[in-house]
Each structure stands twice: as structure tokens, then as C-alpha cells.
């Protein structure tokens, strides 16, 4: 074959694969934009596989985005369902009448991770006390600074500790997702506020430990919202209803067990 016919063959093959793997017309596609943690950790993929097995006519396209961005995408009509963990933004979203249905579906928690020795000195302190001490010592702290639910919780703790860390020498802002932020904290032996499941998955490679703070104020509730005005409103509503139902809770429980061996995202 000449080079031109090769090219044609490759293009034709590519086209065929594209068509075959594309959405079939009798499937309804629901775009679910969820916190990056849920997507990166794989929990949502398992739960959505479970749902798709029940509803072969529905296809869930799962996209990860920081909570603020997820809600903005919903507002712009690019998301049918959101699953986020930023209560104050969610309240605003709901109060503006943009939610068809909103339900708290599961909850995990945040931990402060840090280098072994320094973490030991913070054991049992409240988050506010621990952050105050880190600022006082000027110990390196890595922040996502990306408008995520995690970042929001971190900012609230700094506020309550009466510290504004922005621009401080010891405060590194990655403006990125949890995975990379955790890597940077690990490699610089810094403290980082991290959602428990992400920490557990990466625990061995990061070498950071859980500072074991008092749990108050570190809860991490996730809320699913079926976005009003979605072109696939019925399917979106059905999915959110299912997430909150007995069967949905069981699916979340199973996904937890398979991924973490315990209930990290408690349904």
C-alpha cells in the first residue's frame, strides 16, 4: 500500500471506532459533575456503573471539577447533576431556585496530614489550634487554593484561627487538585488538609501521617443536586433520588468496601 492508502485506512479505522464507541441514540446521557475527590478516587465510577446496570437506557458521564466550578457549570447549563461539598455555595445555589432536588448523599471527613515528627505534636488538638500553631512556627503548609470544597474548609479554619496565610513564605498555593497538592506536600514535608480517602490511597507513597486532630469541624458532607432546567430533567432527578434511596446507599456502601475496605464516604 502507498502512504496515501495507509492514511485512508487509518482514518477510516479511526472513524469506525469513533462511531462504534459513541453514544447509541436510545441512551440518554446525563452529565454528572462531581468533586474531584469522588472522581479521582473512583468511588463515583463504581456507583455510576451500578446505576447504569439498573438503567441501561441511561448513560452517566462523570466529570471531576472543584465544587465552585461544578456549580458554575450547572448554572451555565453544562451539568445535569452535581455532587459537591461546599455547603455555603450549595445553599446559595438552592436558594436561587436552581435545584430541582438536593439531597445529602454521603459524608467523609478531612484530616491534617504532615511529616511524622511535627504531626505528633499536634495530636488531639482542634483544627483551629493546630493551624494556629503551624502559622506560629511558620511550618510549610501546602494549599490547593483552587475554590474546591476542601480549600473552602481550609480557609474557614484559617479564619477561625485568626490567620491570613496568603502570601506567607511558608504557605504554598498549588491552585490544583488534591492529588498533585498532596504530592507537593509530601515532597516538601509540609502540612496539608486532605480528604481522608485521598490520603489513604496515597499514604504509602507520600510518607505523610495523619496528625489525628479532634474531628470537630472536619466533617465533609456531599450533596447531590438535580439541576433545574436540565434537558434530561427526569433522568437527572431519578439518579439523585436513587442516590438517597436504600438501594443507592447500598451501592455507595459496596463501593466504599471495595475501594477502601471500610466506610470512608458514609452513606
Amino acid at each position, binding site marked *: 500500500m502507498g502512504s496515501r492508502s495507509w492514511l485512508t485506512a487509518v482514518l477510516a479505522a479511526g472513524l469506525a471506532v469513533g462511531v462504534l464507541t459513541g453514544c447509541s441514540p436510545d441512551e440518554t446521557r446525563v452529565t454528572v459533575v462531581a468533586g474531584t475527590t469522588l472522581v479521582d478516587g473512583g468511588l463515583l465510577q463504581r456507583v455510576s456503573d451500578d446505576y447504569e446496570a439498573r438503567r441501561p437506557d441511561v448513560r452517566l458521564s462523570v466529570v471531576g*471539577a*472543584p465544587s465552585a*466550578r461544578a456549580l*458554575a*457549570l450547572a448554572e451555565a447549563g*453544562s451539568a445535569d447533576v452535581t455532587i459537591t461539598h461546599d455547603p455555603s455555595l450549595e445553599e446559595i445555589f438552592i436558594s436561587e431556585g436552581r435545584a430541582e432536588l438536593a439531597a445529602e448523599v454521603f459524608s467523609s471527613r478531612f484530616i491534617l496530614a504532615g511529616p511524622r515528627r511535627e504531626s505528633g505534636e499536634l495530636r488531639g488538638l482542634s483544627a483551629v489550634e493546630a493551624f494556629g500553631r503551624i502559622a506560629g512556627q511558620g511550618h510549610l503548609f501546602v494549599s490547593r*487554593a*483552587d*475554590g474546591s470544597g476542601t480549600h473552602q474548609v481550609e480557609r474557614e479554619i484559617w479564619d477561625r484561627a485568626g490567620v491570613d496565610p496568603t502570601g506567607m513564605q511558608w504557605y*504554598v*498555593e*498549588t*491552585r*490544583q487538585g488534591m492529588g*498533585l497538592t498532596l*504530592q*507537593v506536600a*509530601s*515532597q*516538601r514535608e509540609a502540612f496539608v488538609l486532605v480528604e481522608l480517602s485521598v490520603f489513604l490511597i496515597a499514604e504509602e507513597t507520600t*510518607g505523610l501521617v495523619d496528625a489525628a486532630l479532634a474531628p470537630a469541624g472536619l466533617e465533609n458532607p456531599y450533596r447531590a443536586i438535580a439541576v433545574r432546567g436540565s434537558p434530561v430533567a427526569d433522568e437527572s432527578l431519578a439518579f439523585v433520588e436513587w442516590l438517597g434511596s436504600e438501594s443507592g446507599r447500598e451501592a455507595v456502601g459496596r463501593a466504599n468496601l471495595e475501594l477502601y475496605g471500610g466506610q470512608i464516604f458514609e452513606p
Partner: protein
Amino acid sequence: MEFLWEVLADAVEVLSRAGPELWMVVALTLAVSAASTGIGVLLGVPLGAALALGRFRGRGVLRLAVSVGMGFPPVLAGLLLLLAFWRSGPLGGLGLIFTPTAMVIAQVILATPVAAGVVSGSIRGLGMVPMEQLAALRLGRVARGLVAVREARAGVATAVAASFGRVVAEVGAVLVVGGNILGETRVLTTLIVEESRQARFGAAVAAGAVLLVIALGVNIAVGRLGGDGP
């Protein structure tokens, strides 16, 4: 269409009020790309000349390495360096992970084979007659190489442009090994990735426009120096 106009208007606005945050990214992009192109060309030109002119053991292997290197997947180079520089990895003690230096090292790995390949090709492209003349000069090996490189200087200019083009547009390697940390290791390409991932399309397009200007500017400048275009 309205959507695209909005994005464009956003991009213009981002550029018009671009502050030190963007210029820092531009400066780092230029510094990392220039350093890695410079080192890559310094290593690649002699290597390319040796491959074109030399008769030595291991030449075949080296030639193959250059061919593979020219098409080496950048993100894989990034991954290998990430593993090497990881704190508990073999070179972790150097403390290079998530630093501009690590990004330059990754880019040199990508640029050197490109420079070597282009220079080697253009020396061989001089044809038989100049090669025979070169042989007749009875020069030492280094001097012969220098004369050949001088003859193929348009190829050297192309090598500079191609190397710079590869590194300035590259995203996978610098993202993985640099970490895309704000104010430390963020360059234009990784900025675009981040902005588009967060659906801040105006900012992404603005960064893209700056990147395009840099890439075109360097290409045109190098083309002038080399005496002719593609």
C-alpha cells in the same frame, strides 16, 4: 457563536489587565524553554555532526537512540524523571522535584535528539560533493565537524527552531515533573491545561495567544538568522 465571542472578549479582558501573575508565568516559560533549547542544541549539534560524519563503534545504536528520542513521548520523560527525583527515589537527595531545574532537565531530554536529528540530516543533505571536498581538506575530526556545521548552518537554525518549538509547546513532561505550582513551576502550557480544566476559557485563550506569539516570534527570528525559511 455567542459563546465563542464571550470567550474571546474574556480573553481580551484578561490580557488587558494582565498582572505580575501572568508575566511571571511568561518569564518562566521563556527561561525554561531558552535554557533547555540552549543546552539541547549545544549537546545535539555535535552529536548530529558526529552521526553524519563519524565512523565509530556504537554509531548505529546512537542513531537509533536519536530516532527514538525525536519521537519520545514527553509525558513518559516526565514520569521517569518524577520517579528518579521523588524524595525516596534514586536521585531524591538532589531535591530537584517540582523545581524549574527538573523541568529544564526534562526538556533537554526532549530537545537534544531533535537538534541532533535535524543537524545530522542537514549535513548529510549537503550531498556527496561537499562531503568529498570536506574529506580532501585533511582536517582533524573536530575541525571537519566545525566546517560541516558551518556549511549546514541553515540546518542548525532549523534545529534551534525545532527544539524550541518542541519544548515551548510541551505540556506533559513539565506538568508531571514540575507540578504546575503557582508562582514556582507554572508555565504557559500548564496554565492553559489548568484554566481549561476549570472552564476559565477566557484566561486559557489569553495564555494561548501569548504562547502562540512566543512560538511564532522565535520561529521567525531564527528563520531570519538562518537565512531562509522552511
